[in-house]
């Protein structure tokens, strides 16, 4: 008797699967990552235990994790809203750099004695604005010439990186602290720093979480969100319904850029406190794409997913103590991304194994055995 595998699309995944499949994907990523550790001569259990201790076990590690989760929530949201519309903004990384450049520049340019609320509001807006403009450089060609946004946003990442390096390492720019021996950015005044909640965790985390909730509501309950979802579902239907796709592409990409740019400003104000290219270029934008994918583009799910991935990244440095290279965390991230993407298949399709009564009709061909 032969068993035949058949795949049937389903209309909507049952709720149990919507939770279960991502968890199964995480588990699979953990197993594959662990196997690689074994091959490299390490103990995966020790590694995962060390990672847990370093990121979630205790107030201090937890606060460290949440501090890193803050920008990841924002870049995750940035990716999620454009992916929802089937616009592939891979440029959160560069938009974040531009936000950091604008925020740090304005923070050192404004009088240090400015009231903190004015200062914070100005630099956050400057960061968001710079991110939005940078995204606009990809959005406008996309909206009006249908230029491939994957390529343009990526190129803009590399350009932003070079620009940021130039401001600190390549010139005596306004951003650079001329008094310091090593190239480094001027420190921002205390009035430009986000207040601290606990340990190193700053108020930025609240901005990030509130952004997620607001975005979730906007997507579900406003006509702006309705248009975004309709365009994402079917370009043709949205044009037919009278929606203007071009301006929408621009506004959604600009909002996405603003979220990423805002993340850059928050990193400057809450964590880095001056333009330091090495600290800013921490793959926060790229990790945001993983966050969005694992959260299945749901803004509310972005918050826990960003926290989870932040925990993995934060714990990287602790691994060196037990002789494992930090880079394993990037590999783990990639594996999670891969397995979650593969898991989508099981959400949109039902896989049925059924015995075939007549063996004469089946032998080989498609994947038939299990």
């Amino acid at each position, binding site marked *: 008797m032969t068993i035949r595998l058949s795949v049937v699309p389903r209309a909507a995944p049952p709720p149990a699967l919507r939770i279960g499949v991502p968890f199964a994907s995480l588990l699979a990523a953990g197993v594959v990552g662990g196997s690689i550790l074994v091959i490299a001569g390490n103990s995966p259990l020790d590694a995962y235990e060390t990672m847990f201790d370093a990121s979630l076990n205790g107030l201090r590690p937890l606060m460290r994790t949440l501090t890193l989760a803050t920008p990841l929530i924002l870049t995750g949201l940035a990716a999620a809203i454009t992916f929802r519309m089937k616009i592939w903004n891979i440029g959160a990384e560069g938009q974040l750099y531009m936000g950091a450049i604008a925020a740090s520049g304005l923070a050192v340019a404004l009088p240090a004695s400015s009231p903190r609320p004015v200062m914070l509001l100005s630099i956050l807006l400057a960061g968001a604005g710079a991110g939005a403009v940078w995204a606009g450089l990809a959005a406008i060609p996309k909206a009006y010439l249908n230029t491939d946004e994957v*390529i343009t946003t990526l190129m803009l990442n590399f350009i932003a990186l070079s620009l940021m390096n130039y401001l600190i390492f390549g010139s005596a720019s306004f951003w650079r602290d001329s008094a310091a021996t090593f190239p480094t950015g001027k420190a921002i005044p205390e009035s430009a720093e986000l207040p601290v909640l606990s340990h190193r965790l700053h108020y930025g985390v609240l901005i990030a979480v509130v952004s997620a909730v607001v975005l979730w509501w906007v997507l579900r309950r406003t006509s702006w969100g309705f248009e975004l979802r309709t365009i994402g579902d079917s370009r043709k239907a949205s044009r037919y319904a009278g929606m203007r796709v071009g301006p929408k592409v621009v506004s959604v990409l600009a909002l996405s850029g603003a979220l990423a740019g805002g993340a850059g400003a928050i990193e400057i104000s809450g964590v880095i406190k001056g333009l330091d290219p090495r600290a800013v270029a921490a793959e926060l934008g790229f990790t945001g794409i993983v966050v969005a994918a694992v959260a299945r583009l749901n803004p509310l799910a972005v918050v826990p997913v960003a926290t989870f991935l932040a925990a993995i990244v934060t714990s990287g440095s602790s691994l060196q103590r037990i002789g494992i290279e930090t880079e394993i965390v990037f590999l783990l991230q990639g594996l999670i991304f*891969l397995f979650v993407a593969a898991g989508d298949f099981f959400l949109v399709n039902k896989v049925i194994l059924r015995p075939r009564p007549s063996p004469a009709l089946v032998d080989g061909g498609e994947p038939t055995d299990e």
Partner: protein
Amino acid sequence: MNDSVLVLSIVSAIAAGTPILFASLGEIMAERSGVMNLGVEGMMLVGGVTGFWAGIQTENLGLALLAGALAGAALSLIHAFLAISLRVNQIVSGLALVIVGNGFSAFWGNSGDSPLIQRQSGVDVDPFLPSAWRDLPGLGPILFGHDAVVYFSWLVVAGAGYFLFRTTPGLGLRATGEDPAAADAAGLSVTRIRYLFTFLGGLGAGFGGAYLALAVLRTWQAGMTAGAGWIAVALVILAGWRPWLALVAAYGFGALRNLGFTLQIAGVDVPSDFLAMIPFVATYLVVIVASANPARARKIIGPAALGEPYSREAR
């Protein structure tokens, strides 16, 4: 700019363009079958680290390049499975491949008692034609001054062009990317063709990555491609999915990468960070200009079914 500077910059542009060329050629073949694999950067990194490791182990350039190519191809099979069999969004799957490739190569390269990052490649990659030819003024170095891999790349370009446009399987490949349902009805196996050419795309990227580490950079470091894989993806569009145009475009970008070096010789002082920007700014602008020209835009839309999964029973 005198003659020798010009000649030297052309020669170095070819060297710098060759890894991108291999990756672009591979991607052209994959995309011609309808599979868009954005994971080129990741496949190049894995090809690079594997090739570099194999170079140290074997001290044989051919084996090292082969190992790199196979490693890139192995990674591409993950994409093939996700994109072709599981019908996952190809952009998402390609991005995942970049992150996996990046993490895996960095982890491997930095691990162990004697990490690759501190080593020399240990294989010779030098010009091999008689020096009398190479010393011919002007064209001598440009035509005869390269290592064997560059000549191999010219063969591959010619072979790929011939295959695509002058052979029966090439016709089948193009049909699969244009209209998989028609190819299927004609009796071609869409799945097999797509797997095969996605694999070939991985071979190209892995080979390019290995060549980059072994011959161009001659060292290995995490993230050594620095965007070369993405440039390769962009070049596929600029070249209109044609192998010989990919060669022109890759050398053009090789020249841009080396512009700093060239300008330094010419005595022009431009900050190095701006020089590093040039290939990316140029790609950004060229992609926009190409899409702004409607006559060209119609031609560069590429294989009609690019990025679309095919399912025979989808109704």
